[in-house]
């Protein structure tokens, strides 16, 4: 066991865990932040996506020992993020969600895309969101919502 000092959603957190523990489980089990979801555990589905140092990151495969001093931002902070809030509103207005399990990861990836590419093309969306799977098949509405958010952000 080892103690790690994390910055999660602008708050300092100390956690004492095995260094090999994935960030996902630190968030969910130790910090009781259950917005980030466990999907596959091998970075194959994107449900666990958070931002680490501004980089969209699959938290299920990132050992806590590799987080370092980089700030962690999760879905819980998106309502206070300029782009995150607009994306969440677009998700509601476009009625994207069906079961909803993958959607926190989808939104985290969509926000990362829009921060880098304010006016994404269909190809941009396909490539950036290609690692986020949705078993309900909401891909068409996800694309519509990203475009709606881009328009809103102008």
């Amino acid at each position, binding site marked *: 066991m080892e103690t790690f000092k994390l910055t999660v959603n602008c708050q300092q957190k100390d956690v004492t865990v095995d260094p*090999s523990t994935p960030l996902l489980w630190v968030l969910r089990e130790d910090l009781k932040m259950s917005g980030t979801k466990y999907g596959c555990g*091998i970075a194959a589905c994107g449900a666990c*996506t958070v931002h680490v140092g501004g*980089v*969209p990151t699959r938290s299920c495969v*990132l050992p806590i020992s*590799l987080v370092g001093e980089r700030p962690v931002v999760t879905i819980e902070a998106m309502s206070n993020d300029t782009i995150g809030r607009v994306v969440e509103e677009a998700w509601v207005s476009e009625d994207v969600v069906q079961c909803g399990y993958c959607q926190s990861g989808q939104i985290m990836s969509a926000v990362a895309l829009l921060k*880098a590419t304010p006016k994404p093309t269909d190809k*941009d969306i396909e490539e950036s969101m290609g690692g986020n799977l949705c078993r309900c098949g909401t891909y068409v509405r996800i694309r519509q919502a990203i475009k709606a958010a881009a328009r809103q952000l102008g």
Partner: protein
Amino acid sequence: MMRLGPTLLLGVLLLAIVSIGAASREQGDTPDRETTPNRPAGLAAWQKIYSVMSHPRCINCHTASDYPEQGDDRHRHLFNVVRGPDGKGVPALQCATCHRQANADSTGVPGAPDWHLAPLSMRWQDAADRILPSSAVCKTVSDPAKNGGLDGAALIKHHQTELVKWAWKPGLRNDGSARSVPPIDYEEFMVATREWVQAGMPCTK
């Protein structure tokens, strides 16, 4: 006269070599690698280097395609990963989305500083994912127009980066087994690199 013969011959030979070299440089070219005295040793060293470069740990990121490869079978990288404009993926699906500064053995994700795909100019495969022959890779690696402007000294430095060294410490797969490493060890690879550079970076035709 009998004693002067070999000396004269050597002098003419040296003059010819210098002249050829000067002519090449006048044309903005590197010294003619066909005339390098230690060319056989250089070619032998190159074959050792090629045995490393054509290993999956290296060539999986020297593709001619829009995606990296994975595994010893060099299959297309899973999870719809794409190259992106700078070889580091696309905004929401970057190399760093999974690959960080070190191997994550507890989760099976390899990592090293500056994880990225080699540029297309440094592809060592053809469009059908077949590994290019030794001579073609050699010409690519030794051509500053393709290798990012690296001369021999810079090439040696490149081989000392953590990303290149990673090939010999590639960590564990997610089933706990060890990834394979190139057929010669890192020290032998570096000795071969220096020999090849000192020989003028010769390539077979």
